[in-house]
């Protein structure tokens, strides 16, 4: 896990994969020029977020030339990007691709689809069922797309699978200006969330959020990197496009895990026992 990560805090154009593909190329050029080994784009970076009925019109299969053109660029660096995916049986997923050496290493399909407030992902997307850690030449990465990270179970499963870093592409809308706090309510919550993932799972956390507006909703940016101690290690500006570069260092992960051996003491077998008991008792999970 010693690599230079580049987080592309970009502004995708809604529903226009061609324009967004061109933008991805430009961001990749910039990141490669800076010497990046790993380049991360936000959630649905090829398509934009509030697609609504467009989802079914613009979604791409994994073999589509647009997707494959980006995958091909992973000959030069590992790439994480997001898109609306259509499966062979015509289900639609909010997916992120991890590409390396010109090949797809993994497709993570968003597991937790928010369907409340301003979100309507459950209306358009099918939920992914896999939480599988990526074994990259750079290290082991846990992919969690936006709402996935609001359920600690996903990060914990990656932690158990040996992830060194969590990659969190997001499209987080700005909400909550009605306080005297310096940050938005939604932004504050995300800071706690990313710091908690880093602290509890003693992993680097790479949160790549998008910027720009869609129908009046602002995506606030503020992409960041947390160290395996939970500290904020790098932070992009809010609201503007920015390439955030950060050198990940495996020695810090080791030091964090020596200081408190959370991985060693996780006791997943105990959790399995209790979960199995709870799942067998219909009343236990419904009170």
């Amino acid at each position, binding site marked *: 896990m010693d690599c230079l990560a580049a987080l592309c805090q970009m502004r995708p*154009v*809604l*529903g*226009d994969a061609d324009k967004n593909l061109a933008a991805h190329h430009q961001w990749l050029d910039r990141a490669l020029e800076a010497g990046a080994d790993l380049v991360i784009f936000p959630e649905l970076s090829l398509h934009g977020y*509030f*697609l*609504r*009925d*467009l989802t079914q019109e613009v979604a791409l299969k994994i073999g589509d030339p647009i997707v494959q053109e980006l995958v091909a660029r992973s000959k030069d660096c590992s790439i994480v990007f997001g898109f609306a995916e259509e499966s062979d049986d015509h289900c639609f997923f909010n997916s992120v691709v991890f590409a390396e050496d010109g090949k797809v290493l993994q497709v993570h399909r968003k597991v937790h689809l928010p369907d409340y407030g301003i979100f309507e992902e459950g209306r358009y997307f099918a939920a992914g069922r896999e939480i599988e850690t990526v074994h990259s030449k750079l290290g082991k990465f846990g992919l969690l797309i936006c709402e996935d990270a609001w359920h600690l179970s996903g990060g914990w499963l990656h932690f158990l699978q040996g992830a060194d870093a969590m990659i969190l592409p997001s499209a987080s809308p*700005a909400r909550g*200006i*009605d*306080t*005297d*706090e*310096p*940050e*938005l309510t939604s932004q504050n919550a995300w800071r706690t969330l990313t710091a908690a993932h880093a602290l509890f799972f003693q992993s680097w956390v790479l949160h790549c959020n998008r910027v*720009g*507006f*869609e*129908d*009046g909703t*602002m995506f606030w940016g503020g992409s960041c990197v947390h160290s395996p101690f939970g500290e904020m290690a790098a932070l992009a500006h*809010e*609201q503007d496009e920015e390439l955030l570069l950060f050198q990940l260092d495996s020695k810090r992960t080791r030091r964090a895990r020596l200081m408190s051996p959370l991985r060693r003491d996780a006791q997943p077998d105990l959790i399995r026992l209790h979960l199995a008991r709870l799942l067998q008792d219909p009343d236990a999970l419904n009170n």
Partner: protein
Amino acid sequence: MTLPPPPACNVELATSALTAFLREETRKVGFQKAVLGLSGGIDSALVVELAARALGGENVLAVAMPYRTSNPISLELAQESAQHAAVQFEVVDISAMADAHIATSPGLAEDDSDAARLRKGNIMARCRMIVLYDRSARDHALVYGTSNKTELMLGYGTIFGDMASALNPIGDLYKSQIVALSKHLGVPKAIVDRPPSADLWQGQTDEEELGFSYDEVDAFLHHSIDRRYTREELLQLGFTETAVNSLSRRVQINQYKRRPPVIAKLANRTVNLDYRYARDWGS
């Protein structure tokens, strides 16, 4: 019992978010300019400040549209806020067009009943909308709205009149937040301190007409809508039963003003029901 305070407002964040909102949402649909009505009140004075910051004063046209009975101070203050924001300014007297319309309904001109005053007020608001949308076509400028969240929730505005716009930067800010943000952006003090009024007749003030102070209404709406307090919780906070009942009812009966017209569903895909695309589609 002391009522809770009206909602706070992070003025720095609101300024940067709303300025970026206007700039991005205007330019991505192919416009560089904006047009808005200036009433001499705080809402439009705030929007003109935001618009000037977003697009540059030379790209913003503020139009004052007095009727012959409008308070002359309103026009003076409209001019002052246009000057303060350093935007283009135009005065269009709507008396002739409004009177021509009023004259089509025999007896309306002389009628001084509440219902007649309301009808005439609505005619004026719609005349102003016509002027703004004409300037929009003339100058290739997007119409900015100036309805705040308190008005939108209470339905205190004219549908297809002052509620008509392409972009509304302040529709999610309560009146008390509008005041805080206006002070922050240096809106002239005479405008900030002026009692809010629809200026439909002399001496009219919003608070007298609503029967509640804006602070009370905003605290109520903020807790009920944004914080999702139940009726019982609102009563426990100190809102009277009368306030809870009348404000809740008002919010409910004006829902129609906040929605596009209802379309009878016949086909498989119906506009806005199950034909759902963002306005920003492809832009």
